[in-house]
């Protein structure tokens, strides 16, 4: 298995950098326990991973890691921690889209947004999401070190003439 293939598996269900590093940390933790005489050597690694985090807060993360497949986990367990470090470095170097959203979104919505970005922006883009209430009606984002405002302000400016015409009409009808 190559690093690119592993990266592809990781990116299949990971859309933000934070999420990615969290998953890699859980995987690292699991691999460490397996290396130093883990619980069940005979059982499937994915099952072992899920059962290790069964009653913890990291259960959804562990399930997401398990979804990468037995092959990935076995490969990383066989290789030294150097491979995992290399993957972390590759992840850190992936293109990043910093989004400023008016409210926190559910992870399904984040996944949907992430999928759209993979299609429209970059096949390996990762999101970094912040909450900023002044971005309501759209969003702000930073792409390639440039800040863009596509919030309500942008759309209002785009229709500036129409809105002013409406204001003028309102003034004539209700004020004078």
């Amino acid at each position: 298995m190559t690093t690119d293939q592993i990266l592809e598996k990781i990116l299949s269900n990971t859309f933000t950098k934070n999420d990615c590093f969290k998953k890699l940390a859980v995987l690292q933790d699991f691999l460490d326990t397996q290396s130093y005489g883990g619980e069940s050597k005979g059982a499937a690694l994915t099952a072992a991973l899920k059962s290790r985090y069964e009653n913890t807060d990291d259960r959804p993360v562990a399930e997401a890691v398990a979804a990468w497949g037995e092959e990935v986990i076995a490969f990383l367990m066989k290789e030294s921690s150097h491979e995992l470090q290399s993957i972390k470095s590759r992840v850190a170097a992936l293109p990043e889209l910093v989004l400023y959203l008016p409210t926190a979104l559910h992870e399904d919505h984040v996944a949907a947004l992430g999928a759209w970005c993979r299609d429209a922006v970059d096949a390996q883009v990762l999101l970094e999401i912040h909450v900023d209430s002044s971005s309501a009606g759209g969003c702000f984002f930073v792409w390639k070190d440039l800040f863009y405002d596509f919030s309500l302000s942008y759309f209002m400016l785009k229709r500036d003439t129409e809105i002013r015409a409406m204001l003028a009409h309102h003034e004539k009808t209700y004020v004078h």
Partner: protein
Amino acid sequence: MFVFAAGVALALIVLLAMEFYNSRRVNKLTYPVYEYALKRAEEEANRIVSQARAEARALVESAEAESVKLTTAHQREDDAAQQAYQSALQALLSRFENQIKVAADTADEANKRISAEAVEALKAQAHAAQEVQAQSLQATTAEMAKRVDERFAAAFAAAEKEVAEYARARKDLIDARIFELIGETMKIVFQKNLPSEVHMQLVRLALEEAKANKVF
């Protein structure tokens, strides 16, 4: 030795006695002569002094008489000279007065003649200038009135234009502020009232707009 000393002392005493006796006798003889000589010298001195006094008195008297005589003579000469000077001065003054009078009369006549001519000429000039002034004043007044009217009209037009510009600018400013307020209000409303799915859709729309604008 004692005898010698006694002899010397005795001799000395005798000498002293003789000296004393002789001087008394000389004094008795010489004193009156001295007094006589003194008296005679005094008398001679007095005589010389009184003679000198008399001579001096005589000299002073003669000098006084001479000075009085001289003073009187000088006074007479001065008076005569003063009188002659006064007469000459008077004559000169009279001559000057006559000359001045003649010159003044001549100047007066000439003045009168020139004044009359000048007055006539000035009157004529003033009259002509008055006419010219009246004409130019009329023309200037008309011109000024026309210019003032034009200026006022231009100033009014400019003021009206400025007022219209100002009103438009203020209106634009107010519109911009209303615009801003509407935006801010809508953002607050969106944030508070819209469900998460709608936010997600709006974010998608924003990203699609960005893609359409070739940001990505």
